[in-house]
């Protein structure tokens, strides 16, 4: 059967803004890259995707990313905006399975008609996201969300792919995130557009905020913002909302990031295909050169004629 016939029903439900169809579409993208690109192109050809504003939320495990999102998104619902949320948690390097537990913190949002929430496993990706995230963003734009919010896995210092995937990155920090030396390190501390110190209900927060202020007063970071919030007590989050709305208004079309995203999509496509080839390949009797040629042959066969 041709792919057009196979997915005809799904595509028409998707166009009617059926969340179940969106959910199926995302599974399809996660599991089958080859057909998903065709579907994405068809959706985009039929109607131009929304220019959704993509906000990334990152930070170490347990700093309160999910709890922050639950309170943050509530503020946008008052203005009737449509919000798509993607929550990523790590896949096991041993079993390939995952325990996806971000949704627990935002169950109140589940029944809101304007919100869609999807939990994803990282499936071997090392940048803090999953390899299919860029394609998933494309279908979410086609679904017509005003804002797309992406939460990374509990991120370490080099898990910075969120920078490329999103228009705006919020780094959540906890007051016990270490001393000043940690703040000056490269990587994740550099990629944020705004810093949020969560848990200001904790007594250690005052000292940490002073250290952060000193850091941001250096010339390079002068335009970046710092917010202290308590997600638990729902304090200070409205200020971030106002600031982000201002940023969205002033946002320019980001040609550089769009270029990078396109390249990463192609790269991830090949990585997925090659990984699938390697899983099913017996390596026992072949040396490394034979193996390379074998993979190349199968790669051409898999994606040939396109």
């Amino acid at each position, binding site marked *: 059967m041709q792919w057009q016939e196979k997915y005809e029903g799904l595509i028409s439900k998707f166009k009617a803004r059926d*969340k*179940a169809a969106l*959910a*199926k579409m*995302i*599974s399809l993208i*996660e*599991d*089958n*890259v*080859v057909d998903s690109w065709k579907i994405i192109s068809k959706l985009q050809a039929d109607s131009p995707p929304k220019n959704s504003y993509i906000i990334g939320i990152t930070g170490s495990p347990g700093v309160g990313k999910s709890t922050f999102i639950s309170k943050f998104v509530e503020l946008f619902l008052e203005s009737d905006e449509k919000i798509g949320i993607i929550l990523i948690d790590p*896949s*096991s390097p*041993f*079993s*390939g*399975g*995952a*325990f*996806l*537990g971000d*949704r*627990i913190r935002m*169950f109140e949002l*589940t*029944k809101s008609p304007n919100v*869609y*929430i*999807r*939990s994803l*496993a990282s*499936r071997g990706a090392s940048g803090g996201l999953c390899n299919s995230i860029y394609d998933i963003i494309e279908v979410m734009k086609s679904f017509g969300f005003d804002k797309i919010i992406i939460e990374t896995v509990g991120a370490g210092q080099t898990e910075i792919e969120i920078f490329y995937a999103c228009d705006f990155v919020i780094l959540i920090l906890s007051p016990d995130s270490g001393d000043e030396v940690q703040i000056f390190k490269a990587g994740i501390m550099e990629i944020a557009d705004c810093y949020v110190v969560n848990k200001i209900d904790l007594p250690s927060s005052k000292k940490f905020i002073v250290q952060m202020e000193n850091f941001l007063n250096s010339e390079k970071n002068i335009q970046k913002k710092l917010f202290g919030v308590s997600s638990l007590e729902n304090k200070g989050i409205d200020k971030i909302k106002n600031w982000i709305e201002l940023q969205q208004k002033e946002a320019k079309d980001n040609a550089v990031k769009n270029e990078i995203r396109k390249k990463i999509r192609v790269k991830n496509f090949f990585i*997925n295909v090659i*990984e*699938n080839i390697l*899983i099913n390949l017996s390596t026992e009797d072949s040396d490394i050169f034979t193996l390379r040629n074998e993979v190349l042959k199968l790669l051409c066969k898999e994606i040939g004629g396109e």
Partner: protein
Amino acid sequence: MDKKIRVMIAKPGLDGHDRGAKIIARALRDAGMEVIYTGIRRTPEEIVEAAIQEDVDLIGLSILSGAHNILCKKIISLLKEREVEMPVILGGIIPEKDIPELKEMGIIEVFTPGTSLNEIVEKVKSIAMARKV
């Protein structure tokens, strides 16, 4: 290509004891599945809506409160209402005499205390795979 099984482990109703649900979720994780855990005290409406948004291949309910007949009936009827075909299994403190009624309303499998993790993992796998194909 790479088809992963996605399941949701959910706790409907008012009991707040979720050690069992977490152990099941972890066993399924270790068997290579992607497990979405809902946390405790969810309503049937929340569970069904979340399962649809997450496009899971199976819903596993954990109920220790004794309200299993009412909660399961509600969840099954909500799934029918939304025209979603999603297998539902149940685990917890379930009296033997209630099991026929639960199966009749559409619960595919009922696991009572003492069932081995292995048995649960294998059954979940085969039920979920049947939907996936």
